[in-house]
């Protein structure tokens, strides 16, 4: 507390003095909510960028995948660097395929099932990467107002207690305490509203990306199963 605040304790009602005059609980609530807000926005920014990157990568990969290049060539190009989205699906499936063909007397029995398992796992991994931390947004959106309300109730409680102690009910005495208390709810709403909006938006984005990955996985497993059947008939012949 700086000396200027001590000099004029009541008259000053700026945001900073409101924070300083609040009781410790309310202060904690305020700081916590402010931290939550910072975190929420961190997640929002990061996720927005991640989704944009993923979408771009998917489009790029689909373009190269359907361009007619051979799968082997594509695999060797992609397996060198870490991949995201569809490319990681492709790499995982191809790796499983290659592993089956490395041994000379490998059987094709169960290869189809294995590839589908691998695709499912990598889809789950990708989706999890996309929607990690989204639950934080949901939590802040639902709990933020309550936490703020708790701060408000606590602040009003203390201000009423101080009214009772000072035996003075003039508005000038009551008003600063209530303003401080309401400030907690304001911060809570400030954190919760963007979090809620962003959560709903990103949940939708994740669902869209997941659907896209699954459809690609189905298509790719269909292609691979055709190849497996071809190899099997060749070997039988």
């Amino acid at each position, binding site marked *: 507390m700086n000396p200027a605040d001590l000099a004029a304790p009541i008259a000053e009602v700026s945001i900073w003095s409101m924070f300083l005059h609040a009781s410790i609980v309310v202060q904690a609530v305020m700081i916590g909510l*402010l931290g939550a807000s910072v975190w929420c926005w961190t*997640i929002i920014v*990061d996720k927005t960028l991640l989704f944009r990157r993923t979408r771009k990568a998917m489009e790029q990969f689909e373009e190269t995948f359907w361009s007619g290049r051979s799968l082997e060539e594509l695999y060797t190009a992609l397996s060198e660097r870490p991949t995201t989205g569809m490319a990681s699906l492709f790499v995982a499936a191809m790796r499983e395929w290659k592993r089956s063909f490395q041994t000379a007397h490998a059987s094709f029995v169960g290869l189809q099932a294995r590839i589908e398992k691998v695709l499912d796992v990598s889809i789950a991994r990708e989706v999890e990467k996309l929607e990690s931390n989204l639950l934080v947004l949901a939590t802040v959106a639902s709990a933020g107002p309550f936490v703020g309300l708790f701060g408000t109730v606590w602040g009003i409680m203390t201000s009423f207690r101080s009214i009772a102690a000072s035996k003075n009910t003039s508005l000038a005495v009551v008003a600063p305490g209530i303003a401080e208390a309401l400030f907690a709810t304001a911060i809570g709403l400030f954190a919760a509203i963007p979090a809620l909006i962003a959560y709903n938006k990103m949940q939708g984005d994740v669902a869209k990306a997941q659907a896209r990955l699954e459809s690609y996985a189905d298509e790719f497993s269909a292609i691979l199963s055709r190849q497996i059947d071809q190899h099997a008939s060749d070997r039988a012949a």
Partner: protein
Amino acid sequence: MRISRSEPGLIVSAAAHATLLAATLVAFSGPAQFDPAMENIPVEMISDQAFSQISKGEKTAKEVKPLQKADKVADVAEHKPTPPLNEARKDVPLPPPPLKRLPDPGEDDEPKKPEPQKMAALPPPRPADETKPAPMPPERPQPAKAEAKDQPKDEPADAEPIAPKPPVRPKLETKTETKPAPPPPKPSEKPRLHPDDIARLLARAKTDDKPSLRPKSGEETDQPRNKFDSNAISRLLDHDKPQATGSTGRELVRTASLGTATGTASKMSPNAMDALNSLMMEQYMRCWHYFGTGAVHKYVPEVKVVFRQDGSLAADPVLVNPTSDPAFQSLASAAIGAARECNPLRIPVQFAPYFEQWKSRTIAFDPEEMR
């Protein structure tokens, strides 16, 4: 959370919050204070002059009777019965007993019986009728008409079961009586237009139409259209007597209004009155030729002077308090002389509007002051 280039969320978010916080600290640093509520108190400025000119209604003035305005005394005094007030109907507590009618010779007993019951239920309308100058007895002799007027009115208000049939009968009678009246004029109107008259009218219409139907361009009409005839002016004027001839009444209402509580009038202010007084005395002092002793003068002659508008005397000055003491005779005559000598008294124009207030004055010639 790790900070990487691909995930700049934390930095961006922290920076945004910091700037937002700083902005709010600046923006909300001094909350706008409410304007202190100022109560408007109407203050009227009033000058000395205006204050001394306020004319207030006198509280001791005669009360204005709530009479109708009358400009003339009526030749024949009219006594109109005052209409019963609305309150009277409500205040009458009980239906008066005379309502029990004596059995009429021409009526059945049946309709009579329900009547008192109705009255108990519906007291107000009856007494109001009763308060009219003519009480019951005079009405009773004409049974059929009175019944016809009163009872049909009551019927709709009353409960149906009690409404007796008989009262309707007189109503029918009156109808048949009144209806024959209108028809007679109708047959009298039609025969009025004789065939001869029609022919005459048609002939006149023809003669009127013909000249007007073909006016040739060069032809001069007999009557110039817009010729101004100064002699005809009086014909154009309305010779009817003015319709409003002034209201008439039993007595004239001459009570003026009592003035308003806050009215101002062109009344001489005390200051102006003082100024005029001193002006007059100054002039009279010049015409004062009395050099009596300065001893104890118990006598102050008072002279009543009547002025014209221009300040000249309208009448000979009169001594108001003549004395029998010969010692003061000279003083009194000196006073009258002074009033006569200053005949056209010079009165400034500014006092002209207040002529009514100074046209008649009683001036005290105190020899002590006149010196």
